[in-house]
């Protein structure tokens, strides 16, 4: 049996196989994209005002078939069809990204954990507001003030903006009132 491995070409071929496998896996990954828009439509043609094929939601996985300008032809198995049914259509590149969607709150919590801020301000889970202190930006003002000043710096104004409380449910309610998302 071991004679099989003695042939040099066979040994090289066997050693190379894993690389081919990994290359194939990676190539497949690069053609997968994720819907980032909260809700959007898969269109029948690469233009906005074309017949919608199906509604897509944030997080749905799409397989790229072709790219054309600002539009990407994809295949998908959307939740809105009850699953199990694969459809094809076009989606604008401004609604998708290469990685699974991560919300601002989720990411800011990750940043807080990274920075080990045990005393991070407790916020309601649906709140968009993340204060400057919890993001570790307090030092920014000092760093920016260093050196000769060309522009004035008003940290209080930007902190006031940061501290504005916005509930995600209020934003969604605002978005859905009186209009239809496309």
């Amino acid at each position, binding site marked *: 049996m071991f004679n099989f*491995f003695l042939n040099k070409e066979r*040994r090289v071929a066997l*050693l190379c196989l*894993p690389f081919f496998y*990994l290359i194939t*896996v990676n190539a497949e990954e690069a053609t997968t994209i994720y819907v*980032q*828009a*909260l809700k*959007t439509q898969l269109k029948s*043609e690469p*233009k*906005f*005002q074309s017949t919608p094929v199906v509604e897509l939601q*944030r997080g749905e996985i799409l397989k790229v078939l072709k790219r054309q300008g*600002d539009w990407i032809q994809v295949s998908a198995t959307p939740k809105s069809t009850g699953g199990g049914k694969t459809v094809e259509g076009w989606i*604008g*590149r*401004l*609604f998708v990204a290469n*990685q*699974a*969607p*991560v*919300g*601002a709150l989720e*990411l800011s919590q*990750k*940043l807080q954990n*990274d920075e080990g801020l045990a005393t991070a301000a407790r916020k309601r889970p649906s709140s*968009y507001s993340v204060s400057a202190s919890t*993001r570790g*930006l307090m030092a*920014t*003002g000092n*760093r*920016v*003030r260093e*050196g000769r000043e*060309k*522009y004035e*710096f*008003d*940290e209080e*104004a*930007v902190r*006031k*903006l940061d501290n*504005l409380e*916005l509930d995600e449910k*209020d*934003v969604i309610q*605002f*978005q859905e*009132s*009186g*209009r*239809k*998302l*496309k």
Partner: protein
Amino acid sequence: MRLVILMALFWTGVMSCATTGKDTRGKQDLEKLANITREEREVGYAMAGKLAGTFGSFDSDEQLLRYLNLLGNSLALQSNRPEINYRFGILKSLDSNAFATPGGYVFITLGLLKSIRSESELAGVLSHEIIHVTERHMYKAIMPQRDVSVGESVTRMLSRGGSELGFNLGQVVNAGLDMLLEKGLGHDKEIEADQLGILLTSSGGYDQRAYYELLVRMSQQSATTKSLEKTHPTFPDRLKLVRAFMDSNGLPKGSSVQDPEMIVHRFKTATASLAVRAKK
């Protein structure tokens, strides 16, 4: 025999990498996203403070500020960067202009806000600025170009990357402000923001023709658009390219339709103090 054992070990390693690869990649993606977002936010925070310091921040009307942030964030919900924590502010400048910094701080001037007649028009302006953020137009231009070697990448990966702001933040921030106020982001970036902004506005359920109409009106108000014209393509060029883009997307032509009654009402209520100020 030794070779067979080596190959068996090698294969086991490869297979375990392949099976856990997706999770590892997911974590690396999140790590990378967190680092970039943190850098953008730090630069944006400083730029926002300097814009507010230069022009003055108009933040006394809390109802208006809340309305602006609800509208801006509702549009951003449709964008491809949900990880950004967007904030929308107003600058005390009578020139018509709007600015976006990396990391999601967006400002509109009091002058432009006063000349806007509907929520659809305002949605068009905010969408244009959101695209500057999502496409990282400024961030890509002002961040120092770093040639990253393989060794460096591995070191960063192992160190689970803290902020990579290993440069003079003040210099980068001033370069960004020079770009916003003097040099411009580049005509191609402005056209891209106009065009993708139209799709974002439409996706939010607004009539994108309102944005076109606002640009037409602004093109006739040269007294208040000087600073904007210095940093943007000419209005005739923008209008021509916006029209062509709307055509290529099969979007309707002609005059915009009025927003639904409820939206007209909330726009008027939120901007009531501006109407009073304009009359004075």
